[in-house]
């Protein structure tokens, strides 16, 4: 009996475990899925929590609900991965799992302790994050009674999960304070280490214009060196200071600590991975999916969806000594919630930046690209249902894996 091991039961791990259990002959293969947490989080939903949109059960569900019966599911922390020995040791009962193939899908988390002063006095007082459910819920409570002032959203360093989320947060804040009749009492500031609103030129221009239109100030090239929660200022390495009354921080994102402990990661504990095949650069029987790898694609659920089929194909091909057919093109598709029941859609890949045009989707679309529209907003909201009811349950989602120029203006 051979073992196919999946570390991490988030979006990528849950989906690939199900897929491989379906594809591999159960007489020869056992599929094991390991995660330390009983709860599955719909992370894109965290964005809405501070503004009182979602109840906990809309973004948190038991992981077991999405693990099929032909996958053995173990809840435990991982003590050590020894890829040279094809062996993983769990914390629980020091159980040792010897694997033949492994998918690492251990995700990424925020690390506020990486920034000087970020976790000092102000943390969860007037400094919050929205990348954890707890942080987003605490911020909701704070905003509920906030009388206004200067709200600064600060991205500490890249890469981060969902690079557009900080912008969406600002757009939603603009809408939220308007709705409460207090927009004139709130100053909105975006401090980013990037030179503009976004990483790719055309989207950066379009989103930058939207920030201006919504009266949101941007402080570009701001690399935070220190949070001074005594004085309520953030200070950059080049000595610029931004005062805040409320700081919403997107702290440094890092891969799982066990990746670092096991000597498998880069300086941020992300696993060096071939950007086309998703195979580990060092170990042929290890594939790395979702946020855990270091490929230059967005860390986002849609990206995982686009990786899924081709990684499964690659693993099966590699098992039989064939050439791996699947080539990931870096495809990302993101709805950017822009407030007032509108959203922008961007669709891009390794080689093509987000462009204007339309995104065709039979029966529902077309969605407009790089431009605000109401249908995009409904697309964004529909995604949550699609996630819980289709994606995680292995039901086909009608979004083609490969990037296409169809409908795009260039």
């Amino acid at each position, binding site marked *: 009996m051979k073992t196919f091991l999946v570390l991490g039961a988030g979006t990528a791990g849950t989906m690939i475990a199900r897929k491989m259990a379906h594809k591999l002959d159960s007489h020869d293969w056992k599929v094991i899925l390991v995660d330390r947490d009983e709860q599955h989080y719909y992370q894109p939903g965290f964005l809405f929590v501070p503004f009182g949109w979602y109840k906990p059960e809309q973004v948190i569900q038991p992981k077991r609900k999405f693990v099929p019966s032909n996958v053995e599911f173990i809840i435990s922390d991982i003590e050590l991965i020894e890829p040279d020995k094809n062996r993983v040791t769990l914390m629980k009962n020091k159980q040792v799992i010897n694997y033949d193939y492994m998918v690492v899908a251990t995700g990424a988390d925020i690390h506020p302790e990486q920034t000087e002063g970020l976790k000092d006095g102000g943390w969860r007082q007037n400094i919050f994050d929205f990348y954890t459910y707890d942080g987003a819920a605490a911020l909701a409570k704070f905003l509920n009674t906030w009388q206004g002032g200067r709200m600064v959203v600060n991205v500490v360093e890249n*890469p981060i999960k969902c690079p557009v989320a900080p912008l969406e947060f600002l757009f939603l804040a603009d809408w939220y304070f308007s709705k409460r009749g207090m927009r004139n009492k709130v100053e909105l500031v975006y401090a980013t280490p990037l030179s503009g609103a976004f*990483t790719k030129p055309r989207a950066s221009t379009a989103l930058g214009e939207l920030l201006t239109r919504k009266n949101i100030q941007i402080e570009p*090239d701001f*690399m935070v060196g220190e949070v001074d929660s005594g004085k309520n200022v953030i200070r950059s*390495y*080049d000595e610029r200071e931004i005062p805040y009354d409320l700081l919403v921080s997107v702290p440094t994102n890092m891969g799982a600590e066990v990746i670092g402990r096991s000597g498998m990661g*880069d*300086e941020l504990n992300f696993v060096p991975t071939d950007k086309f095949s998703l195979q580990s650069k060092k170990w042929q029987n290890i594939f790395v999916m979702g946020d855990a790898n270091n490929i230059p*694609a967005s860390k986002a659920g849609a990206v995982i969806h686009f990786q899924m089929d081709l990684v499964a194909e690659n693993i099966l091909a590699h098992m039989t000594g064939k050439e791996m057919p699947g080539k990931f093109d870096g495809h990302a598709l993101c709805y950017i919630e822009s407030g007032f029941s509108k959203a922008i859609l961007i669709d891009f890949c390794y080689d093509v930046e987000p462009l204007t045009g339309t995104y065709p989707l039979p029966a529902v679309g077309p969605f407009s690209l790089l431009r605000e529209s109401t249908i995009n907003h409904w697309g964004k909201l529909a995604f949550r249902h699609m996630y819980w009811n289709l994606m995680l349950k292995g039901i086909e989602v009608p979004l083609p894996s490969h990037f296409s120029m169809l409908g795009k203006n260039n």
Partner: protein
Amino acid sequence: MAPRTIAGKTVDFNDEGFMTNPDEWDKDIAVEIAKEEGILELTPAHWKIIDFCRQSAVETGKAPTLRAITTGANVTTKDLFTLFPKGPAKKVAKVSGLGKPEGCV
């Protein structure tokens, strides 16, 4: 993409001002790009970082991120900002003839 003449050589740059072929790079070009970026003189401390970035790019095929530089070249973020003000990772990548660091996707 547009070629232009720098330090007496014709070299390709992309729209964002990064060289497109690291093999076309040499130290004279580095000095000229540095000047364009407002760094009037490249000191041994600058060269230590540039050398690290060039070497890192040979090994990984891409320009290192800010964190990769501070970890790998054993320099503090603060010092890096003093040497290459405003966006040091991008600035070093430019001066070193490499592409835009992929930290920003």
